[in-house]
């Protein structure tokens, strides 16, 4: 049997028997993304729904209170404005409203009536509740204004002569699942690195420490072949880890859980073509990560030293990956230079493909740049593998 195949199969077998690899690289990303989605789903279903908006009113049951109830808000009574203020301060109330006593009477004769609202601007749930109340009040004001204008014989077109006509310009093939697209590219890229990081320190540095590397070097196998096998094995783990996060999304979509219903209103967002681009872009990115990590593990004296170096390297990978989350909201997201920045280019290309936008020259540059850097890093790893002072030091 080809020695590359022999060593590769042995590495994979060992990795699959390693609990850390199973947890961190195979099931971890899947589980993590599923948890993320449950969390996001929970936030969207609770914060976004009016039925979850709680409003306190100071001893009142007028037409506005009834409208709030009709809109699905949870309205509770409070004895005084002072008590309401204390409740907001203690986080027991989100919004407290005090209406004038003759609110409905004044409204009937189109007289101004004041509503006092207390809320906590530093708390998001309080801000959301306030926004919901404001929306209802604006609607009531609009109805009142329209009734007055009609009574005075003025049409709405006369009162509001400016009209805006909007048209959505279609850039990609699909609108995409914006919530998923917000974080999935980042997770796909990040897990490719962290999945490999769970095992790479054992792969060479750990073998030096346990003296198993020396027994391998005494076997009639060329050193570059050993380096290649380690690279292939590590790349496999990185790719599995990365794809595990995508699998997590599909599993959640298939489960049809009520809590994540809102997340999948526009489908999963990964079309077969987008999946193809993800694989195309991730293959060289995975090669890039695997070769860098392998070079670090080869250089390190032992597993602990490798882990320290890798922690530093992970920041270099993390920075462009994190930027990918924000760059989509700026003009830079469509700039050509982004395709030349490793890691960032992969995440950005994945993001665009999930929106159905396939910029083939950008995809080509992304693949070429990642591949070129991967080849350089792999060359460094093989060179280190051939240097006895690096390989035999512990």
């Amino acid at each position, binding site marked *: 049997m080809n020695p590359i195949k*022999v060593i590769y199969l042995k590495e994979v077998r060992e990795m699959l028997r390693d609990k850390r690899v199973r947890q961190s690289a195979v099931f971890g990303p899947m589980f993590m993304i599923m948890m993320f989605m449950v969390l996001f789903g929970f936030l969207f279903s609770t914060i976004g729904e009016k039925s979850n908006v709680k409003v306190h009113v100071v001893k009142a049951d007028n037409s506005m209170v009834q409208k709030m109830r009709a809109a699905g808000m949870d309205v509770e009574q409070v004895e005084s404005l002072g008590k309401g203020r204390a409740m907001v301060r203690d986080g027991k109330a989100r919004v407290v409203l005090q209406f004038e006593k003759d609110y409905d009477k004044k409204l009937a004769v189109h007289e101004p009536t004041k509503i006092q609202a207390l809320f906590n601007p530093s708390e998001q749930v309080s801000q959301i509740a306030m926004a919901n109340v404001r929306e209802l009040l604006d609607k009531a004001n609009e109805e009142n204004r329209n009734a007055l204008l009609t009574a005075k014989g003025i049409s709405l077109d006369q009162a509001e002569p400016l009209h805006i006509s909007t048209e959505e310009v279609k850039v990609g093939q699909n609108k995409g699942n914006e919530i998923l697209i917000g974080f999935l590219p980042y997770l796909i890229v990040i897990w490719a690195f962290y999945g490999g990081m769970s095992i790479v320190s054992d792969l060479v540095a750990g073998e030096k420490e346990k003296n198993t590397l020396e027994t391998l070097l005494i076997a009639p196998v060329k050193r570059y072949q050993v380096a290649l096998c380690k690279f292939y094995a590590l790349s496999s783990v990185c790719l599995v880890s990365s794809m595990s996060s995508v699998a997590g999304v599909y599993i959640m979509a298939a489960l049809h859980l009520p809590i994540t219903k809102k997340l999948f209103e526009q489908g999963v967002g990964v079309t077969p073509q987008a999946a193809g681009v993800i694989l195309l872009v991730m293959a060289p990115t995975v090669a890039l990560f695997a070769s860098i990590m392998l070079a670090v593990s080869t250089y390190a004296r032992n597993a602990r030293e490798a882990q320290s170096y890798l922690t530093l390297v992970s920041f270099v990978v993390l920075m462009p990956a994190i930027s990918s989350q924000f760059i989509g909201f700026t003009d830079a997201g469509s700039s050509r230079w982004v395709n030349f920045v490793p890691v960032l280019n992969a995440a950005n290309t994945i993001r665009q493909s999930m929106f159905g936008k396939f910029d083939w020259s950008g995809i080509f540059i992304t693949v070429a740049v990642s591949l070129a850097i991967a080849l350089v890093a792999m060359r460094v790893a093989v060179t280190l593998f051939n240097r006895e002072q690096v390989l035999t030091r512990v």
Partner: protein
Amino acid sequence: MVRTVDIAKHFTDPKRGVVKAVDGVTLEAHPGKILGLLGANGAGKTTLLRMLSTVIQPTGGSAIVNDFDVVKDPQKVRASIGFMSNSTALYGRLKAKEMIEYFGQLNGLSEERLKERWEFVREKLDLSEFEDRLCDKLSTGQKQRVSIARTILHDPPVLFFDEPTAGLDVLASQGVMEFIEDSRDAGKTVVFSTHIMSEVERLCDHVVVIHDGRIRTEGTVETIKAEAGATSLEMAFLNLIGHEAVAK
């Protein structure tokens, strides 16, 4: 057969300057004989064995193992040797049988030959009772047996032993020494490095005393004792290098 001529390994250390780990060693080991490398810790024995097994390259001189040059034909040298040290160096997450088969495949054994050799080592080293157990779960003695099986599975003509009994109890050491004797009886060329005098007296046909990377003396145990004017090998060794080493 193993032959070195003026083999050397010098390297530069930022703190110590030029270090001569091995400095012009010439020796020969023959089939059916055990050559003992006797020296204190740091004498250069392991460096010499590492050069002979092609893990590191010499900076001077030459070495031939089973008719192959260690620099020009490292692959062929590796295919001709078995190497065993005190560290069993087993992969903890492989089963004993998988571990042995792995090295058989790396040494290019065909499926049929591998099966045949596996049956041989399993019976010889009594591996059947734990062949399907992960190496991490084996006792020290069992690990040692797996390590021996790995060393001889491909039936190499040359065997290197680098302090193979260090850290082993009496029973396990006895097993290793019997295995070395068996290898000699099977016509293998054996190079055995140690600092334990009793093992040298029991096993070695020819002894090379190394100190500071150079050969101090060589011969049979008896000739070395006679040369040093000592009644025991230990005293002979101390007379040859001991006082100097203690002073250091």
